[in-house]
């Protein structure tokens, strides 16, 4: 109950910010406007060896994860502090619960200053610390994110994005502590969305981070540890004899991650990413549903090795291989692993040829629950990405001038940059 009260106070604080709408707006004070987006289209082929001995194959044209993001920012009267907002749209997977929707994945506002940043609204959750080099957000989702114990939908959007009241404090320009109250999407047992606004968790992250623009010689570029807490409601799954009850519970996951630059050659650049998640889970009886797998006790490790080829310091191609391993500790033979080599060839600024192969193997126990032993997926396509700034007037927190020259070249961490 105390947790719910805390959440209520946070919600009131968030609502109070809306009162600014009562004040006049000066149209002469134009914000910085960031417009970013990516159109990604791939032809996919999938082949599955089923747990019952059969096989299935499928092919599709996939436009999922194409997105458009508008960011706005401006300095406040204090000059050293800034305000920001973002609106983002994203296309969900064609076979997910959101198939016909355009998902609003970013709607947030915030303020920040030399040492702090406060963000309210829907945004990327802090349930992963490293972005792994796959073509789409969900390619390694089960291996890289703390999953949503309140959603039984297949929609990756309900796993990656959510409501949050997030505050960050920078002890040094490179070391921050981020705390968030989170409102993950809640669904019913069929995966239909019930709420995206109920506070039902929180996280605390301590991270050391140096942008790649500054650190490309050998050594640690990111190191972080995070605790992710979820407050879970009860739910009944299935019908008749197959009915299973999920009780009200909570679960806590610990995430640790590291990004290490292996080389010190900016033209031939090797990076190793690693992340481990230990989830203490909640009581579940099976692994048949999305929500049960999200709530199950699990240990996850993901690794990625990336190579950037930048002759004359012009990025031409990136090759990467990502490995994922996950064990549902409460279940026998419930381990999965995946191998994902990815190749991105740059045709022009922001225009890339894409190719990815993914192999996934499920142990017998997990295969029985999912109905799939082995899976092969191939994706080949093109992406067009851009990031353009109008009325460039606000700095960047990760800029060299801010981090190395102490010139208060500040701006929002997100917000379209």
């Amino acid at each position, binding site marked *: 109950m105390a947790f719910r009260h805390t959440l209520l106070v946070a919600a009131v604080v968030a609502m109070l910010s809306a009162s600014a709408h009562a004040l006049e707006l000066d149209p002469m004070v134009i914000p910085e406007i960031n417009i970013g987006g990516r159109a990604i289209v791939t032809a996919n082929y999938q082949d599955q060896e089923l747990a019952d001995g059969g096989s299935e194959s499928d092919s599709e044209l996939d436009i999922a994860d194409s997105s458009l993001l508008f960011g706005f920012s401006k300095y406040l009267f204090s000059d050293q502090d800034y305000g920001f907002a973002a609106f983002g749209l994203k296309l969900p997977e064609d076979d997910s619960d959101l198939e016909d929707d355009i998902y609003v994945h970013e709607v947030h506002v915030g303020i920040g200053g030399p040492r702090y940043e406060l963000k309210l609204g829907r945004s990327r959750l802090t349930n992963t610390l490293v972005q792994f080099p796959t073509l789409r957000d969900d390619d390694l989702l089960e291996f890289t994110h703390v999953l949503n114990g309140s959603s039984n939908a297949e929609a990756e959007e309900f796993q990656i994005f959510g409501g949050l009241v997030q505050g960050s404090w920078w002890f040094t320009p490179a070391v921050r502590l981020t705390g968030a109250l989170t409102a993950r999407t809640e669904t019913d047992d069929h995966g239909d969305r019930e709420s995206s606004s109920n506070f039902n968790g929180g996280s605390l992250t301590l991270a050391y981070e140096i942008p790649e623009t500054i650190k490309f010689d050998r050594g640690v570029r990111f190191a972080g540890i995070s605790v992710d807490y979820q407050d879970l409601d009860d739910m009944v799954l299935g019908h008749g004899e197959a009915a299973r009850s999920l009780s009200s519970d909570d679960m806590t996951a610990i995430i640790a991650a590291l990004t290490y630059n292996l080389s010190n050659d900016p033209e031939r650049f090797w990076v190793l990413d690693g992340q481990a998640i230990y989830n203490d889970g909640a009581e579940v009886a099976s692994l048949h549903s999305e929500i049960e797998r999200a709530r199950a006790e699990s240990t996850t490790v993901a690794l990625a090795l990336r190579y950037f080829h930048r002759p004359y310091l*012009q990025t031409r191609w990136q090759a990467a291989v990502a490995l994922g391993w996950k064990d549902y500790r409460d279940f026998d033979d419930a381990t999965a692993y995946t191998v994902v080599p990815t190749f991105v060839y740059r045709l022009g600024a922001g225009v890339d040829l894409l190719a990815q192969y993914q192999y996934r193997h499920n142990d017998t126990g997990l295969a029985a629950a999912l109905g799939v032993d082995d899976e092969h997926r191939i994706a080949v396509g093109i992406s067009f990405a851009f990031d353009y700034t109008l009325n460039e007037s606000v700095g960047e927190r990760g800029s060299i001038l801010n981090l190395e020259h102490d010139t208060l070249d500040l701006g929002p961490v997100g917000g379209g940059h």
Partner: protein
Amino acid sequence: MSEKNLSTPPGEATGNTVISRRRFLRSAAALTGGALVAGTARAAGMDATAYGVSPPHEYGSGEGSMMYMEGHNMMGVTTEPPGAPADDEVEYREFELSFDIAEHELLPGVSFPSFAFNGLVPGPVFRVQENDWIKVIVRNNTEEMHTIHWHGVDLIYTMDGVPMVTQDPVHPDETFIYRFQARPHGTRFYHCHWGLPLHMMSALAGAFIIDSPNDPIRKQWPYTRDYVLVLQEYDIHFTRTHLNALLAGMKRVNKMMENRTLTPLTHGFFRRYEDFLAAMEKGWRPPYTRGNAEFTAINPTFFAINGKCYPATIGEHGHLKIRRGEYIRIRLINMGIEDHHMHLHGHQFLKVAEDGNPLPAPIRLNTIPVTPGKTVDIIIYGNNPGFWDFHDHKELFTRNNGIYPGGMITMLEYEDMGAVPYVPSISVNQ
């Protein structure tokens, strides 16, 4: 000590280079079979035109440059280019400069990060006497490359500070020593000649005043005060964003230099035009091509006199003072990219020099255009007591970020007015 000048044929390189330079040249020579070295020449009985001028030259393009050499590294090097007398041959006046990054306040509430000589915007004012031998030891404390061009000074060509024309750029952590004779007298200036748009927006410029006891202007109008007003405009957002982008790129370049893996193509250096064409044929694309180019607009919104915008120009930063019956000299230097039309209220002044050189006859004006790269000297005679506006009459430049009054406004104040009926105050938003 051998006596050499630039007519030394390639492959016969000897001389008195400093140790670090010599060490570098050894590795460079191994790659190319020869390189220029620092030379000396006797100063006695020679003027500066004797140095470095030996037509017709026998060298191919890029001779003496390290920039097209694979794996070149200039970090930590002290470079003393050839052509000037050695330290023991003339008496040098020695100065120290540095290329720095500093945060500069244009006026209260507006600061921006900038390149800056000795951390100052604009750079420090040199005041030397005509024919002084000048030695400027400049150290590059930034991660970017720079040079110094001595604008309007007739010097030895190897000291002219134009990258890839008279010298290699001064690399990060490199010390470069300019030696030259200060002549002719007049209002000159110095500025970085590398990456000019950004570096000019970044205030890498300063006044270089060469005095002379024979200055005809002083003789004709015996002025008692001598003001230097440096006119510059700033797009502080362009400067900030491009400084960040530049430093990000240079970190990689410098790392490659440290690793001795830097190639000429990384920076776009070519020994010959044919080499450039060959690289294009092989698929290398320069950054200005339409697949790579960014559209960069420079829109200055702050306009400064001596690095300050009105009302910060009032006071120590350009506030001009005069007394009745007094001549004062004002040296206007346009180190920026815009034209400025400086107008003085209540007076007709005399334009007495242009580009630092005395005019045959003065021109009587009250508004004077100062275009980019130009210097103009004016003489004001104190004959109309009061407080008088002195401002750019291109009024778009008398604003701070679009708000009038601001920018290039200062004031001529009579010190001997006694009691006055109205005294100026400060207005920042009309």
